């Protein structure tokens, strides 16, 4: 089958972009950044209202802004960008034309229309139901309709991705197995299909209920299935941003996976077990059995946690091995000291890996432990956790990837390179701080999604300890700095697209150049010390484990002082 398209080989990276795929990646990534901008503007309202001394917005505006912030960031920004990543991992990495470009544009249009319809509904003010929109609280019908259209579009995009894999296989653009990064993207896409199907299953009846066609949707059934959408969509992020970590390790260091077997098996564990995590949200609910909670919330004996701990070791480990091969072998950490810290693509990813593991990963396991969940459920610890996973993990990783894509994909020289160098540090570290103090406030019991923690004028008002107010003020400060970091990212990316110097687009050809067969690797690695190829990474992993174990048992100790419950 021949189709009229061209393939461009980027002179800066050697990557080969098919014309249709290139436009689709650009369009999806660009709209993603627009949503990040909108979500970021909304974040100003959220942060400045939860800062007790400021309390900027009125209650109704605050709840509306918070609803929009959650949806625009967690769903629209991230999934638009993920569609771009999927197309990149299939078409670009496999040097293949994209399957059914017209349908891919249809998917894009559905997602765009859906997201706009949803947001119009939210900003009309009658759909301030939060991202979770628990029934029987109802939003306008268009709130659900927008989400459904978006979900259908995203689902179609996943199938375009799968179709592209089939095309690549059939047209023999590569031999052997797909690259590890594409393998990770396949994991993300499989999880996405499950996620989006769950969303459709629960949002369609809820939409019909808002139209008066269906009489009622059971609140507990809604929570159970909604979370198969709501939490699983964060698992798409995990699989996608870990794929990008491998990608950046390969780009920045020429690093190869320590073991294809370990990394791919870890992705496989994600497919099998990661979905169970939506049970985390139901641990404080009535009506679900203990066995169901324990099995699901532990991802069946923590096999998905195991997978994350493996990725957390193998990615920096691969970087270390690559650096040691270049001669940075002194001591445990010369490889890390001599890493390209001035390159925002690398620094962003590294800050993301550390923050995702230490802050997001550990806190996630605490919340997902059946009994410990009782001291965390619906406190502001929860947003503290997911800002560490979704913002430090996914958003910062995608930001880092954009710095790479501006010259390679958008063919523009990045403006303000000095500022770009600092952006991951400013954004990453302020988010670290933001998440930590949020978890601190949550440990003191402060509620999430709450306009007035002082209960002003209420006879039964609860007076939070002073430390809780202090923590919430620090959340405000950390949030403002992080928003500034996000604004710099938008300035650099959008500015580069508009004003950056145009770069040479490289040779185009009407036919793809197949990926050459890689020569088999030689003998076992002989660098490193103590028989360990990556001793520095192993030492870091031990620090991580120590923090994990200590914090885990501190929480049990705290739990054991509470009222008896049975």
């Amino acid at each position, binding site marked *: 089958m021949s189709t009229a398209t061209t393939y461009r080989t980027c002179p800066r990276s050697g990557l080969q972009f098919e014309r249709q795929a290139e436009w689709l990646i650009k369009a999806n990534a660009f709209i993603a950044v627009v949503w990040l901008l909108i979500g970021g503007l909304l974040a100003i309202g959220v942060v400045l209202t939860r800062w007790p001394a400021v309390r900027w917005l009125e209650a109704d505006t605050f709840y509306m802004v918070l609803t929009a912030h959650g949806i625009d960031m967690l769903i629209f920004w991230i999934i638009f960008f993920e569609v771009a990543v999927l197309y990149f991992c299939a078409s670009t990495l496999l040097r293949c034309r994209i399957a059914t470009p017209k349908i891919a544009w249809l998917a894009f249009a559905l997602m765009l229309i859906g997201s706009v319809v949803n947001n119009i509904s939210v900003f009309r003010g009658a759909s301030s139901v939060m991202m979770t929109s628990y029934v029987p609280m109802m939003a306008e019908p268009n709130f659900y309709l927008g989400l459904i259209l978006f979900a259908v579009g995203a689902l179609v995009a996943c199938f375009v991705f799968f179709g592209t894999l089939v095309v690549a296989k059939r047209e023999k653009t590569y031999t052997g197995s797909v690259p590890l990064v594409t393998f990770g993207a396949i994991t993300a896409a499989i999880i996405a299909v499950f996620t989006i199907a769950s969303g459709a299953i629960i949002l369609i009846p809820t939409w019909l209920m808002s139209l008066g066609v269906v009489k009622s949707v059971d609140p507990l059934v809604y929570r159970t299935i909604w979370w198969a959408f709501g939490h699983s969509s964060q698992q798409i992020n995990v699989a996608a941003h870990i794929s990008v970590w491998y990608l950046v390790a390969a780009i920045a260091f020429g690093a190869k996976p320590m073991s*294809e*077997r370990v990394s791919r098996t870890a992705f496989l564990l994600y497919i099998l077990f990661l979905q169970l995590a939506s049970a985390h949200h139901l641990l404080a609910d009535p009506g679900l059995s203990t066995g169901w909670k324990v099995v699901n919330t532990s991802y069946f004996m923590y096999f998905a946690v195991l997978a994350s701990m493996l990725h957390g070791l193998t990615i920096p480990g691969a970087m270390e091995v690559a650096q040691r091969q270049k001669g940075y072998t002194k001591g445990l950490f010369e490889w890390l000291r001599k890493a390209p810290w001035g390159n925002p693509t690398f620094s962003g990813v590294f800050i993301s890996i550390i923050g995702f593991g230490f802050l997001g990963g550990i806190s996630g396991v605490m919340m997902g432990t059946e009994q410990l969940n009782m001291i965390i459920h619906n406190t502001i610890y929860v947003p503290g956790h997911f800002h560490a996973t979704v913002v430090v993990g996914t958003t910062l990783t995608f930001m880092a990837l954009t710095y790479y894509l501006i010259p390679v994909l958008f063919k523009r020289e990045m403006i303000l390179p000095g500022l770009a160098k600092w952006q991951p540090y400013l954004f990453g570290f302020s988010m670290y701080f933001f998440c930590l103090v949020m978890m601190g406030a949550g440990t003191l019991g402060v509620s999430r999604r709450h306009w007035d923690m002082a209960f002003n004028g209420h006879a039964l008002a609860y007076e939070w300890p002073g430390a809780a107010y202090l923590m919430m003020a620090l959340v405000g400060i950390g949030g403002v700095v992080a928003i500034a970091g996000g604004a710099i990212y938008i300035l650099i990316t959008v500015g580069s697209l508009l004003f950056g110097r145009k770069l040479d687009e490289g040779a185009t050809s009407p036919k793809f150049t197949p990926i050459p067969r890689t020569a088999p690797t030689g003998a076992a690695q002989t660098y490193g010390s103590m028989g360990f190829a990556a001793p520095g990474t192993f030492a870091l992993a031990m620090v991580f484990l120590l923090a994990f174990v200590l914090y885990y048992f501190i929480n049990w100790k705290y739990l054991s002082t509470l009222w008896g419950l049975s």
Partner: protein
Amino acid sequence: MSAILPPAERLWYKHPIDRVEGTWIAIALTWCLIMFFMMVGWHIWGQQNLSTETYRTTPDKFMPKVQAMVDKYTVRTETDEKTPVVAPPAGSDVYMLARLWSFYPILELEKGKTYKLHLTAMDYNHGFSLQPANINIQIVPGFEHVVTVTPNQSGTYSVVCNEYCGIGHHKMVGRIYIK
């Protein structure tokens, strides 16, 4: 070979495992199993486990039970709304309902005594966030959740709603006294 190229070895699952990775897999798996059995073990030896006793209910079925308790055991009223403070005997069934935007009634319990606390929501989802103890339970409409509680400290506890329930959400706060 790199992560963005197809692996050189045709069968990636035969790729050797490095010693760093092998050791880490063993450690990580052990830790995962410890965490799993900790959660199971706490059900056997721990004192804080959330009950799963649940019944389907409706406001019409639940309200009379609350009212019967209030009529029988009210000791005084508090606030301008004259919210009853109810002191049921130790070991009995006590009821608390959540609705837009209050908890009803106020309870007065004894330290060290065990009660069966029945929770439900009359309208939307609500949250039972007991402060400063920091015990958090979801309250779902249509379901009566029976939680066995044994307060271990005396004092004034607040029940903060920590599930968003509309424009008055931040005004929703109740109370439990422990003598």
